[in-house]
């Protein structure tokens, strides 16, 4: 009897330790501790002004899929994916997918020149103070979030995207 009680006590204690340590390890490996926005999270709302001076608010796009891209004119991989984004934007805009290409911390002049050069027609919100960039915890750019019609992030990637990938992504968030 006494031995049995002892075994139960030991098993419970070891189980608690194992769970605590396991959870810590899981968090250490998989969780980003800097509070950056991850796949599965709700996309934090933001409001910025685009190149034309219009207010752009993420929550206004509820019901649509949003291809949310963070980029800079000086970043080569961002430059490479821009023409593909523009191409797919023309196709998918009618199907309820919007592109928001948030520029990270650059001036109007630089961004406008860039947009003209690549004939970009999707909204380019300017995050001059990088407040949104920081709120999303963006590390390297480009970083793209796929936001579904309910405002949930279903994918996050920091790769330079190919035309094919962009197409697949658009299909994914099409409402």
């Amino acid at each position, binding site marked *: 009897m006494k*031995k049995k009680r*002892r*075994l139960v006590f*030991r*098993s419970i*204690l*070891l189980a608690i*330790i194992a769970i*605590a*340590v396991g*959870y*810590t*390890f899981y*968090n*250490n*490996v998989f*969780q980003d*501790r*800097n*509070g950056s926005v991850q796949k599965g999270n709700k996309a*934090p*709302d*933001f*409001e*910025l002004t685009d190149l034309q001076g219009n207010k752009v*608010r993420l*929550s206004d796009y509820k019901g649509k899929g949003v291809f949310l891209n963070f980029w*800079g*004119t*000086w970043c080569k991989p961002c430059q490479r994916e821009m023409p593909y984004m523009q191409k797919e934007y023309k196709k998918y805009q009618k199907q309820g997918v919007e592109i928001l290409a948030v520029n*990270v*911390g*650059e*001036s*109007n*002049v*630089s961004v*406008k*020149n860039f947009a003209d050069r690549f004939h970009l027609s999707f909204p380019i*919100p300017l*995050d*001059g*103070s*990088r*407040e*949104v960039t*920081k*709120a999303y915890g963006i590390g390297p750019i480009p970083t793209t979030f796929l936001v579904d019609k309910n405002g949930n992030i279903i994918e996050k990637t920091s790769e330079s995207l190919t035309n094919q990938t962009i197409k697949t992504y658009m299909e994914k968030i099409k409402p």
Partner: protein
Amino acid sequence: MRYEGSAVRSQTYNKTFIDKIWNFFSSVKVGIGIIIVILVAAAIGTIFPQEMYIPPNVDPTTYYKQEYGTPGQIFYLLGFHNLYGSWWFLLLLAALGISLIIVSIDRGVPLYRALKHQRVTRHESFMKRQRLFAVSDHGISFEQVKKVLLGKRYKIKEDNGNILAEKNRFSRWGPYVNHTGLIIFLIGAMLRFFPGMYTDQTLWIREGETAAIPGTKTDEGQYYAKNHKFVMELYNKKDKQFSNALNQVNNEVPKNYQSNVTLYHADPSHVVGEAPQLKKVKDAKIKVNEPLAFGDYALYQVDFKLNEFHRMNLKLEKKSTGKSFGEIKINLFNPKSEYNLGNGYKVKMIEYFPNFKLDEDGQPATENSVPDNPAFVFKMFTPETPKGETAFIGIRKNVEAGKNKYKMTFSGLETKNVSALTVKKDRTLPIIIVGGIIFMLGVVQGLYWNHRRIWIQQKNGQLWIAAHTNKNWFGLKKEMQAISQESGLVMPVDQSDEKSA
């Protein structure tokens, strides 16, 4: 540590898998083993710098080999460059924690029981075994002995005319108290990895700028900081007190790094990016060693950048006469696309490269968005040249398309300093502090006091005396000497002296 005759729990039986794990960790030998493995691993980790201390812009895969040769490469390949965050090092720390818990339960409980139910009358062989021991034929007054012992703060238990005098038993709990402190400390360290417990982010903020403090957005709102001024003070090399030391080094010696800021708070209704409605919380001077604390957070002065370009002034001039037709002031973070100088003179900005470089194709480009090396393409319009003349202007660069009549000349520069502030939230701190305090108390309790016991027994008309302490025999002997002098009790002999003599 003597366990007072009561068997250590784990050694009494050995059956199931759970018991095997338990018994493994309940061994002090295993515990010491874990300590030594951690110690050796930690030492190896200091041979070369950890990844977090190497320059931020280098590639660790090549850095270690380049800097430290083959040993460096081995160091890197074995993962010692990120030792203290590696899974196996954390596993070792976890093992230490488990060992602490199990060892303490396994030994503390029986020890407690044994000391609680001590018998006053002990067996002859027990008495003889004690290091301090004597037998005397002289009878003495027990009352006198007891008085002396009480005077020395002994607690006395009597049974059949035998005496057990004991003091500072609490010192025996020291190890268990300090182990508890360590366990709490390790739990605190573990909790850091739990969501919401810990934030560590850095904010670069220019003078005059107001910025959201990253990581401080909660349901109650968000904190903002405005940087009024970054101050750097240097020691004066002519200062008599320190002049010798200061003149030994070529560099300037810093005296103070400080950011003068105002802390604001915005309502939770505020949407990120939107111009916030700020409520002032307080003004503060943040210095190294003097962080600004607010709510759960603290804001630290950690780095700075002096004299970052902020505004550049240029004049439109006619080359032949050198006459100026006005000055444009370009905000390098937000330049305008057109600057009108009146009377038909204007300058259009066609291209802007904040940090100019030539890319792989030899095309003008920018390294990033920080205006460390600004360059522009301007189109200058004058009544004389209504179609405009194009020129590329950079720092000490002026390239023209064809032959221009007009040019832009550099006429001034405004700079600003940038402060780097680290924002920290660490909700584990109270737990860590409590763990540390308990640990210290336990260590002091266990090491600065000694558990002393004296047995005095009457056997066959003889008086038997034995004394024991868990450490500091020298002190016990001195005390016994005093006791025997004051009470007439015979002074017990140190049996270990006899052995060695």
